[in-house]
């Protein structure tokens, strides 16, 4: 696969880089921190993170690289591991295999592939261990790193890009990994990796090396000629040092003092100039000797020279033929993954369950209405409001926290083109339903029974449905908020604000007609107002209350109570429809936020 890019930039980030790699080769980008390795990989994978390509282009198979093309044939292993914490290593890989391997694979073949990758990366010992994260114990850091690499190796991509694959791995595993990568490269694939400190035995495995320092090319060529090149320009490598270490040190910028920094910058500048000169002069020589074509063009001309395509098999083609699983299939895999991950998280399940049950018992016993003393009118009204407006707050906080913990993974998987937004959206929404249903049952049924609310079965059902809807509104609102804002703090603060606004305009804390125009209009979209109205009507319509006041017994019809709270303006079905409408609206907003807002995460706790 011929592949060429040509890049010039006015800033110091990356200047005048021109290199061509064909399939079957492994290119290592080396250099000290801050040399532009990650920037380079970002440019190749079409991720414009802040920077802009001033001039130059990247060609894959002679075609200008686009996001679409990159998704199809480039696998990118990132430096940070983004994995679901409660799945085991094998499960993680199986789910990816179901999403990533072409349809033509049978289940056995998929399973075989997973097992192969597990063996390849020496993950057999921990295959049945949870992946884990900072709060839950799981596999070790190095193992998690290997799982991330395994995820990308799984689908056999045409171009494999790895950002610091060996950092955090022990030397033995690192060595094995690079051997694996070089074997992959031999199988007509292109492997590109950035690495800051390759061991000598790893260095020997590289085909091509690109040595960068503050964005400038110091050397690019075959690994075995590197020492020869530097010797020819007067920097021989001492006998017992690792050439990679020696030359990375030579070109690194020492920022400890100002003078040293200037000196290093000077040296780097001269080295990159020498290299440009050398390559210009020996252009032919290099090309002939290595069957490799590297040309440097100045940043002004920046149009890469098209070299004739000479490669036989194009790996991308294979992937275009084999269709990846689509729509319904993606949805079912994602749903399965979502539910498995949730079910495995015992601690969270217990905590959420305890939250629901304890609050239900507390409220239920507080408003205990069984037996001789039924609840008074005021207490019943207070109970009906509170039921729908206090505890869902915890649901909002939980949902926001959970979505944010998954946000970075979602972003990366969408960028990788593992699945599209729509299946994810449906899987997420439907995957939340069992938990939601369980929460409402555990929370609202005990209260209903303990407080001895209207005992007719249809009233109970209505009450339950209203509770279900109001909690669902809170949940969808939280989903929307966490998709809309990049940090956990902003999301939880603003969902808190919406919740409180809905709460204050609910008609219980402040009378509806004491609200001035703006909040009065807000009250129409306040889900608590509608649930309160609905619950009031369900409870009081067609009932009478006897009130004992100074030896006089008054009979108050239930409708009057509803009227006194001004909750009778709209019929019951209006409450239902509005609540359904509000949650549908939040879902729509959630979908739109997923679709149009990058799910990049910048969480900082």
């Amino acid at each position, binding site marked *: 696969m011929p592949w060429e890019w040509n890049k010039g930039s006015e800033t110091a980030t990356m200047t005048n880089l021109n290199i061509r790699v064909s399939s079957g080769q492994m290119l290592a980008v080396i250099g000290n921190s801050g040399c532009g390795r990650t920037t380079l990989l970002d440019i190749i994978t079409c991720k414009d993170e802040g920077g802009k390509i001033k001039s130059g282009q990247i060609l894959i198979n002679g075609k200008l690289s686009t996001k679409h093309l990159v998704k199809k044939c480039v696998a990118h292993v990132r430096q940070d591991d983004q994995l679901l914490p409660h799945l085991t290593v094998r499960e993680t890989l199986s789910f990816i295999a179901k999403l990533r391997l072409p349809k033509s694979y049978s289940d056995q073949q998929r399973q075989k592939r997973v097992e192969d990758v597990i063996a390849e990366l020496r993950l057999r010992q921990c295959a049945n261990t949870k992946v884990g994260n900072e709060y839950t114990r799981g596999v070790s850091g190095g193992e998690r790193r290997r799982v991330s690499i395994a995820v990308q190796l799984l689908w056999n991509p045409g171009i494999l890009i790895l950002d610091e694959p060996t950092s955090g791995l022990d030397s033995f595993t690192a060595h094995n990994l690079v051997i694996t990568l070089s074997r992959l490269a031999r199988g007509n694939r292109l492997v590109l990796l950035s690495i*800051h400190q390759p061991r000598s035995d790893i260095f020997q495995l590289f085909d091509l090396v690109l040595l960068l320092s503050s964005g400038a090319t110091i050397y690019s060529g075959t690994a075995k000629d590197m020492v020869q090149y530097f010797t020819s320009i007067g920097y021989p490598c001492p006998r*017992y*040092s690792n050439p990679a270490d020696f030359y990375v*040190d030579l070109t690194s910028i020492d920022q400890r003092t100002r003078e040293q920094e200037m000196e290093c910058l000077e040296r780097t500048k001269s080295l990159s100039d020498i290299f440009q000169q050398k390559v210009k002069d020996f252009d032919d020589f290099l090309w002939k000797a290595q069957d490799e074509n590297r040309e440097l063009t100045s940043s002004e001309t920046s149009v890469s020279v098209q070299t004739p395509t000479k490669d036989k098999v194009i790996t991308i083609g294979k992937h275009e033929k084999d269709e990846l699983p689509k729509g319904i299939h993606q949805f079912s895999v994602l749903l399965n993954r979502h539910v498995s991950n949730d079910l495995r998280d015992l601690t969270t399940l217990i905590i959420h369950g305890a939250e629901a049950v304890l609050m239900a018992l507390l409220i239920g*016993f507080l408003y205990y209405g069984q037996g001789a003393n039924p609840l008074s009118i005021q207490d019943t009204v207070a109970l009906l409001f509170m039921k729908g407006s206090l505890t869902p707050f915890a649901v909002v906080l939980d949902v926001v926290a959970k979505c944010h913990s998954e946000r970075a993974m979602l972003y990366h998987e969408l960028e990788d083109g593992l699945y599209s937004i729509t299946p994810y959206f449906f899987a997420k929404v439907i995957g939340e339903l069992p938990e939601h249903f369980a929460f409402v049952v555990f929370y609202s049924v005990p209260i209903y029974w303990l407080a001895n609310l209207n005992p007719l079965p249809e009233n109970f059902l209505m009450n339950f449905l209203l509770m279900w809807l109001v909690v669902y509104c809170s949940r969808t609102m939280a989903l929307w908020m966490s998709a809309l804002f990049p940090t956990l703090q902003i999301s939880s603060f603003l969902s808190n604000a919406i919740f409180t606004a809905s709460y204050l305009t609910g008609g219980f804390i*402040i*009378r509806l007609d004491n609200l001035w125009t703006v909040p009065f209009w807000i009250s129409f979209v306040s889900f608590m107002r509608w649930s309160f109205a609905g619950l009031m009507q369900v409870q009081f319509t067609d009932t009478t209350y006897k009130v004992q006041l100074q030896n*006089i017994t008054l009979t108050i019809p239930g409708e009057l109570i509803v009227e006194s709270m001004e909750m009778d303006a709209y019929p019951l079905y209006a409450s239902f429809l509005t609540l359904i409408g509000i949650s549908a609206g939040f879902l729509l907003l959630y979908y739109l936020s997923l679709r149009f807002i990058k799910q990049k995460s910048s969480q900082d706790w």
Partner: protein
Amino acid sequence: MEVVEDASSDTTISGKEGSCNISVQNICYTVRERVGPWWDVQSYYNKWTRQILRNVSFYMESGQIMAILGNSGSGKTTLLDAISGRIGSKGTLLGDVYVNGSQLKKEQFQDCFSYVLQHDSLLSYLTIRETLTYTALLALQKHSKDAIKKKVDSVMAELSLTHSADTVIGGRVFNGISSGERRRVSIAAQLIQDPKIILLDEPTTGLDAMTANHIVLLLSELARKDRIVIISIHQPRSELFRIFDKIAIMSCGELVFCGNPQEMITFFDDCGYECPEHSNPFDFFVDLTSVDTRTKAREMETYSRVHTIASAYKDSNQFQNTLQLMEASKKSKVKQSIPFKQKEAPSELSKLFVLFRRTVRNLSRNKSGIIMRLSQNLIFGLFIAFFLIRFKNDVLEGALQDRIGVIYQCLGGTGYTGLLNAVALFPALRAISDQESKDGLYQKWHMLLAYIFHIVPFSILSVVIFGAFIYWTVGLHPELTRFGCFIAITIPPHLMGELLALAVLGLVNNPNIVNAGVALLNIAGILVGSGLLRSLQEMPRVFQLLSYVTYQRYCCELLVVNEFYDLNFTCGGLSNLTGPTSQCPYTKGTDFIESIYPGATSRVTFDFLMLYAFVPAMIIGCVISFKFRDILMRR
């Protein structure tokens, strides 16, 4: 391979003043673990014993630096944890550690060894000099100011931090010193206590090659000054080969080899594995001693190789020599005392004072933190005011309902903002206190108390701003003394919200869970205690009793009395119209108070006392929770 034999690694016990030696003998560590995850019921109930460390023994003297090499999972970190006394009581630790020939008790480990963890936890708004000075003040209380300054300067010079001494350390949000400097500050903080034995867990991980080399060179210089330095290291570069006096290689929890570089080369030569010319000896030998689990056959083969090498080492001269040295040091006539870290146990109060100054200094540079603390309540107040604008005076227009609503919000809202502050700002400090308490600098609850003291003024100020705004905007009772009382009543709930969150943060690590849990706890308190949502007289007996232990009960009673006492309302435009036939149950505020809190007007002082008594009680609760955290973390 060319190796320069170092003079300091010769094998006689030097009798120099101030020198010391450490022998670690037959350290074994085993844990019992569940075989499978919880959803796999059958295997979950089976437990198996896993041996993490197997008979590890070595001997070191002052002036030496030892590197522990090995693959991940070989037990490097566990070994360091075990020696430093940081290992939990989850497993069983066997074996002895001798320093200068006398056996060390498990409790003494922490006082003798300094341990630098892989992750630096430092306060992000302090400068390097301040960080070290505060550590020095905590560790060396009895020294004079000049002595401490001198000590800090000398430590900074030793770790070449002098040129950036007054740079702020920085955190994730803003830039400060580089990662190599951060690591050096962590090491410097340990050096303040003048330890003779320093352990470091992966000091070079996450640093680029040049910085990593620099750190290792610095450490070897430290060792030359009569200290013992033991580090676990990951992929050291070949230049470092000659720097270490001793190299230990671990595999599967066993010490496969331990000796100086020259001995290592000859030992492996004798075993028949010669290090090739152009490769890094570290990497070569580590690869040689690691188990390849890719296939069963490879696993058996590599495992038996490791086993052969390990038994060859056990029979080798080096190992016999080590054993002899251990015996010699144990039997030596003139036993030197155990070189404990310098620690003149300063009084608890002065520790608290230093910590207090440190947290204040740290917060004073954190502008966004201060703004958040001060403005959160106000934003909340703006929110309420936006929806309500102003109270009516007619019961039919909701005069009672709206007032109760605002009182409820003042109670619940200020508590919630307190919780948010704690959850956002405290976890970082908690991480630091976890680490420093393990260094024996202070106890976890000292940090907690310092934190609590430094938030009090901010809490008061924040409530005053909030109160002044909401009180006059929505039109609560317009009397200055009542305004004063209102402020005094709303301060405790704000503090209690934060304190409650702190107490839970002591037991639960994940701040998100604390956030939701404590929010619910506050709501539950309001439900049971306030009497606004459920009349106190009609509640079941248990909850009536329970309500006495909620601060919300007293707070709410006071707020209601403060607002409604002697306040008269109209009813449909007419005043003073009461009676069962009227639509308004109450037009006199005093009647209303009597109906929900009978006799509340007469126990205002009592309520105030009770409300304020909750604050110290909760502080004690927090301290207990953090004492409990000690026990939890030891497990």
